[in-house]
């Protein structure tokens, strides 16, 4: 009851502000508050806001509730600032202020009650009013309840959804009250959906039964929680319990079905990462026969390139990855060509020496990165469009970063196949691989082809690094984590076969993900390795062995 009374005052206040705005527009800049009235309102708001200056989170929650129902126009701003950790107390005067952090420490502050600009203070000049998770949940609800009276119907829909997400039973009446005055059909629908969650606890049997039945399509964890509770609730009637059980069962079925789809997606996405990491190696190792232990470091260079691009373009986070992809290709590619021209070309046909030399190169690259960027991991930010998940169906979602990387891996693979099959370079590469002496006799400069091929493989590794920077840490050791996996994929797929790498990477990913729930992450990885060892015993040349004379050498 109390809440209802509060919210009705708020609605009246909302109307009052609106009419007030009309007055402002109509009458020019005539203030609609009397000066005295305004300062009285400020004073009372000041008192309420000052309640936040306590250490106890219980008292802060009380204060937040009091602020939410206050008639002052700055309530929403104060609550939002509190939620966003931008509400501070100024140390000198102990008043509550909005504070924005400045570069190089210190804050720009503004009075929370009057909105008056107060200039700048130092790092220690203001102290944050801290919030905890429970308070954060409450704040979101309170903000939503204020927003429910917003002008824009879309905001009202979002607010109704936010309230349903919070599932705080004290918010129910806010929805009810709004329903009485709401006129927009879409908003009414949103509020009614939101109410279903609350109706699960209704005292009226019919309403409760209807709510339970209506929840079949709702795969939200909280609904399942509630239904589980109801189905075991001794005090509920038999019919209610039965209905809850049935609904729960059908929800569980859907969830299990989605789970399989999800596992396949997880597997493909892990596979796509493996393919990305391995495909460059598939060119240098598979096509050229160079065992390049520094492949992982070339990936790492790509990831660091992403970091550098983001640092150089502080405002361009959203498109930084698009610039980082070609940049990483060029950086890693050039380093690759440098390594090939400087070291590997003297070692062709001596696999053991190549292995040792490339291992040395990998250590040099790691330490170089450590000396330039420091030992700490570098934060690479994720653009907005790669965060969150894509809701395929209600309850079945795919995370954007994984989805994009899956698509990206496909594109890279297609591009690489096109280059090898359709371009002059590709033709020369294939010729040199199949028969170096004959290719040279036909006038192909094999040394140049070697350098370009190695550069291509290294460049692809760099591009893989851009993708990995979105999934894992960017640090000097990034590459080491992927080198073993990459070799595994290439050997399993068949040396020198791009399609083999693709099939091997994806199938290993999916196999790993299907094993993981039963065996755990550690054992799943071991099982996959054991499988590959056995497989190699059986077919030493991998899934798709090279045929013909080239394979014999």
């Amino acid at each position: 009851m109390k809440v209802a009374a509060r919210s009705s005052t708020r609605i009246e206040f909302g109307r009052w502000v609106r009419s007030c705005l009309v007055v402002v527009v109509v009458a020019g800049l005539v203030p609609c508050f009397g000066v005295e009235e305004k300062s009285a309102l400020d004073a009372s708001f000041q008192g309420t806001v000052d309640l936040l200056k306590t250490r106890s989170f219980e008292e802060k929650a009380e204060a937040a509730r009091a602020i939410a129902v206050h008639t002052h126009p700055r309530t929403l701003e104060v609550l939002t600032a509190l939620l966003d950790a931008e509400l501070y107390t100024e140390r000198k005067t102990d008043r509550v202020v909005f504070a924005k952090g400045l570069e190089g420490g210190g804050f720009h502050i503004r009075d929370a009650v009057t909105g008056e600009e107060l200039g700048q203070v130092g790092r220690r000049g203001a102290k944050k009013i801290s919030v905890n998770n429970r308070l954060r949940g409450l704040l979101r609800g309170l903000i939503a309840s204020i927003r429910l009276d917003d002008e824009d119907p879309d905001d009202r829909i979002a607010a109704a959804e936010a309230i349903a997400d919070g599932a705080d039973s004290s918010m129910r009446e806010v929805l009810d009250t709004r329903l009485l005055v709401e006129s927009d059909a879409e908003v009414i629908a949103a509020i009614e959906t939101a109410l279903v969650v609350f109706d699960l606890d209704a005292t009226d049997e019919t309403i409760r039964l209807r709510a339970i039945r209506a929840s079949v399509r709702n795969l939200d964890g909280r609904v399942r929680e509630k239904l589980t509770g109801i189905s075991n609730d001794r005090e509920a009637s038999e019919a209610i319990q039965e209905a809850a059980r049935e609904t729960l069962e059908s929800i569980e079925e859907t969830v299990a079905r989605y789970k399989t789809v999800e596992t396949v997606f997880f597997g493909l996405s892990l596979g796509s990462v493996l393919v990305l990491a391995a495909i460059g190696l598939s060119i240098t190792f598979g096509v050229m026969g160079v065992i390049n232990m520094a492949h992982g470091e070339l990936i790492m260079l790509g990831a660091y390139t992403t970091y550098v691009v983001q640092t150089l373009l502080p405002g361009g986070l959203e498109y930084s990855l698009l610039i980082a992809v070609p940049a990483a290709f060029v950086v890693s590619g050039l380093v690759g060509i440098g390594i090939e021209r400087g070291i590997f070309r003297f070692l062709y046909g001596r696999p053991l020496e190549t292995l040792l030399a490339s291992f040395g190169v990998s250590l040099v690259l790691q330490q170089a990165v450590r000396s330039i960027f420091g030992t700490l991991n570098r934060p690479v930010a994720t653009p907005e469009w790669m965060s969150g998940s894509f809701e395929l169906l209600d309850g079945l979602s795919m995370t954007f970063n994984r989805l994009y990387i899956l698509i990206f891996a496909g594109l890279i693979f297609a591009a690489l196949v096109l280059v090898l099959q359709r371009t002059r370079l590709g033709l020369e590469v294939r010729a040199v691989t199949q028969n170096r002496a004959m290719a040279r006799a036909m006038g192909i400069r094999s040394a140049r082809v070697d350098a370009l091929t190695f550069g291509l493989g290294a460049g692809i590794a760099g591009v893989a690094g851009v993708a990995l920077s979105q999934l894992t840490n960017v640090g000097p050791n990034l590459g080491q984590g992927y080198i073993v996996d990459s070799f595994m994929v290439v050997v399993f797929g068949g040396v020198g076969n791009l399609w083999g790498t693709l099939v091997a990477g994806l199938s290993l990913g999916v196999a790993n993900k299907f094993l993981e729930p039963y065996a755990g992450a550690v054992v799943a990885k071991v099982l996959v390795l054991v499988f590959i060892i056995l497989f190699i015993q059986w077919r030493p040349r991998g899934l798709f062995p090279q045929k013909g004379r080239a394979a014999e050498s």
Partner: protein
Amino acid sequence: MKSITRRVALVATLLLGPFMWSADTIKVGVLHSLSGTMAISETTLKDTVLMMIDRQNEAGGLLGKQLEAVVVDPASDWPLFAEKARELLEKQQVDVVFGCWTSVSRKSVLPVFEELNGLLFYPVQYEGEESSRNVFYTGAAPNQQAIPAVDYLMNDIGVKRWVLAGTDYVYPRTTNKILEAYLKANGVADEDIMINYTPFGHSDWQTIVSDIKKFGSAGKKTAVVSTVNGDANVPFYKELGNQGVSAEDIPVVAFSLGEEELSGFDTGPLVGHLAAWNYFMSVDAEINDEFIDAWLEFIDDDDRVTNDPMEAHYIGFKMWVEAVNKAGTTDATSVQDAIIGVTVPNLSGGMATMMPNHHITKPVLIGEIQADGQFDIVWETPGTVVGDAWTDHLEGSRDITADWMKPLACGNYNVKTGTCSGQNYE
């Protein structure tokens, strides 16, 4: 001519060396990895000790002598830790060593310190089940970090289901064993505990996060207790964020994630998750402000942060100085006797005392991660907690106690059988 002078100087150094050293300076060994995987965390601790030495020297040194730092680099290589420890104690004749991070490195140097009777101050939270005459544990034992964190989740947040997620090595395994026993003793059923281990640097968390989500939708409040090590945390929290698991639904409380680690993260997906430590940079105390200012000035970089192991070194260093002053000598045995009971201020405005089991008293703080990579303290123990070397929650360890005061002077005294096994570690 030159070579003769040099030879003479060499002979003189060899003959007089030990006397000259003891006459000129007091040597402080620093045994932290400056390269390899652990360099990320340990380099900062080396700098902390160097700063403490600088400040002590400015304040007039110790026993009328100046302190001299001897820094070695064990390169995140566990056997090398033992070699470097021997070098510090035998060749360099240091009076005290501040060092180690991982438990395995501590286990590796332990026999060296016991053989040569050195002093080691170990500043990191660890799994307990150890108490050596030669080691002072200034980090948290499980009852100073893990157990209070679980208490907080259980009593203040009302958590009923538990996911214990960790990296697959000794600290998470032992800690989870203790936590599992503790939870069961508090009436948590088997099916409400999910334990999961992942390899070092694990980056593909899709399945595990989806499992946690499923585990958390069974009608009871769920929390994750994470002993996941440093690096692997980024993809873990990222995946949590992407799959829509917020800190309000399923909070994650971490034991190895501090300000230093957070400074290399994109903190967006972490906001609201928890960490349990004995010190946060955001602690509101004058002594802390003063320490932060000194640190920023010493390291000459305003973006650097302070963290819990740094505070542990701060406390350990102050305690050692106090004990040396009390004993009037840097002799290891005398310092070991003198240091028990020494009380120095910690950085959160309280006091830390060295207990007879070589662990110290600490307050326990729970903080929520903020977007700026700092923690907001949401809960703290009313007073300080005494570190317990041998946990009360495991069979076999329950009856063992550590007390280095005479006449007992034993790191693993079995109260039931009344014997001291003499072995200081498992």
